[in-house]
């Protein structure tokens, strides 16, 4: 299995396509960081319009932590599409290339191959996420400095102390890795069903877009299925940035408002990962390699 993983990782990181995602993330982040660096104050003023009517906010609101949050909000919706580019190609791409028959005639079972390939794709996904974290968090911290995280949500504002922020990002990135691994597993499942790359890539992207729309539409009919859609849970990394308050409305440092929601989402996402990979293994085991 280790041999398969290193074999697959070598191929992934020798392929030009792999670096599209890294490049796209870097370009997006740098552009947004540049925009916020140049004209961030007017963006912040726009966000704080309601607050400024009543309160004076003193301090570095537009600091690295807030920039990272803004970047994650924007990017974690789109990164799955980049993940699909590699994950959905892992089996079908080899079938298309004709190399699948080479692999499956080596002394490893197909289950080992599918799991090995999934682990390799997962490592790629996590490396991509680390790249995103490095650029979105650490580069932003370096460029914009740090301060308390002043987070403007739809109905309220959360002010998290500077020393209470970093671990939340660690939690959020770990959570995001589960979200992205679900996409990896979905891409993988699609990949096991086809003999060309385009179909599974487009299929995975379409599924993400479709389910995301269902998850975001507040239509009662869809509310029944929403809790079971992985897209509903993918964005719950944000829960790490909501904080509990005590009876006196004082925020409790180090607390998370709804930890049960995070746990539930992680369970749902894990169940999806296991389901998708299991079905991918089953399909791959059963199929005849005709390519």
């Amino acid at each position, binding site marked *: 299995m280790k*041999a*398969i993983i*290193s*074999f697959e990782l*070598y*191929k992934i990181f*020798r*392929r*030009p396509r792999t670096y599209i995602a890294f490049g796209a993330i870097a370009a997006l982040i740098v552009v947004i960081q540049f925009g916020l660096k140049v004209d961030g104050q007017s963006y912040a003023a726009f966000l704080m319009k309601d607050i400024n009517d009543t309160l004076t906010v003193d301090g570095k609101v537009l600091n690295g932590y807030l920039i990272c949050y803004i970047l994650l909000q924007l990017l974690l919706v789109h990164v799955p599409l980049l993940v699909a580019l590699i994950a959905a190609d892992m089996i079908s791409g080899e079938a298309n*290339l*004709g*190399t699948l*028959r*080479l692999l*499956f*005639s*080596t*002394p*490893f*079972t197909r289950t080992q191959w599918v799991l090995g390939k999934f682990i390799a794709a997962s490592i790629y996904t996590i490396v991509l996420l680390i790249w995103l974290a490095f650029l979105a968090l650490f580069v932003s911290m370096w460029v914009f400095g740090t301060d308390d995280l002043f987070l403007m949500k739809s109905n309220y504002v959360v002010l998290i102390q500077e020393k209470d922020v970093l671990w939340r990002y660690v939690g959020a990135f770990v959570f995001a890795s589960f979200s992205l691994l679900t996409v990896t597993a979905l891409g993988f499942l699609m990949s096991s069903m086809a003999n060309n790359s385009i179909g599974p890539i487009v299929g995975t992207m379409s599924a993400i877009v479709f389910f995301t729309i269902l998850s975001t539409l507040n239509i009662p009919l869809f509310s029944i299925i929403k809790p079971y859609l992985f897209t509903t849970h993918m964005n719950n990394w944000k829960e790490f940035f909501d904080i509990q308050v005590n009876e006196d409305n004082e925020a409790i440092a180090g607390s998370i408002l709804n930890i049960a929601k995070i746990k539930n989402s992680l369970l749902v996402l894990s169940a999806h990962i296991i389901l998708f990979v299991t079905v991918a293994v089953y399909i791959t085991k*059963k199929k*005849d*390699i*005709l390519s």
Partner: protein
Amino acid sequence: MSVIHVNNVSKHFGALKAVDGLSFEVQEGQVFGFLGQNGSGKSTTIRMLLSLIHPTSGNIEIFGHSIQDNRNEVLEEIGAIIERPDLYPYLSAKEHLQLFAKLRSKKIKPNAIEDTLRKVGLLDRSKDKVQTFSLGMKQRLGIGIALLHNPSLIILDEPTNGLDPQGISDIRNLIQYLAKEEGKTILVSSHILSEIEQMASHILILHKGKKLADGPIQTMLDPNKMIVHLTTTNDEQALQVILAGSYSNYLLKRTEGIYLSLPHFEIPLLNQFLVNAGVGLISVESRNSLEDYFLQLTSNSN
């Protein structure tokens, strides 16, 4: 010792019977030629030997083990190329060999990669990406991957496909070297019959998923079964003469030309018979080739 034992194996794709009740054995040290037209079921059979395709029914044993139950152990001792030499275009020849070496539990000698590159004539191009390779070079690299772990059984599916005459000759020489010098058991498939004729010690002829014949090539090319092609001044008259006489039993059904299959000592007598019957003979070509045998078998089967 039987290296491959295929017992009544069938593979159906829906209504299509790609392989139908096929049985054969390949013994250790044989160069086993797998003959058949395109679509005869050769590749399907080879893919079943490598567990790429699941048989609908029947058993396959390799090295005395069932491929279904002992897949990994069996595949450890097999090196194969299947149809086209499909490889990773963004990797070099050397990277391919290094990567595939990792997939073998057998210890691969440190100089095995260089030796293999030399053996398949790619040493000077070892660092070039495969996307710059010709078809022949890719095919040679494919064979290199198959040989890298020094397997006992080598399965080559259409190894000379798309190669130029020099490439074909190189592959032929390599197969003969592997069989004679290294004692490998080789199963080689082709629809180019002359290739098999020059390489194989045993052959199996497959047609529409069924075995038509198998055995040592010497028995297939029995001197008592010469193929004679007659060129006459009047083919119609010649045919009538043959059909009226005792040579009608030797006549082969062909759409064009007159072909007979008969023992070599009958040829002068046939010649005499036709001359006596007033047939103007231009030439009598006698051949003893696999191709004729193959065509004869398949045309009879049709």
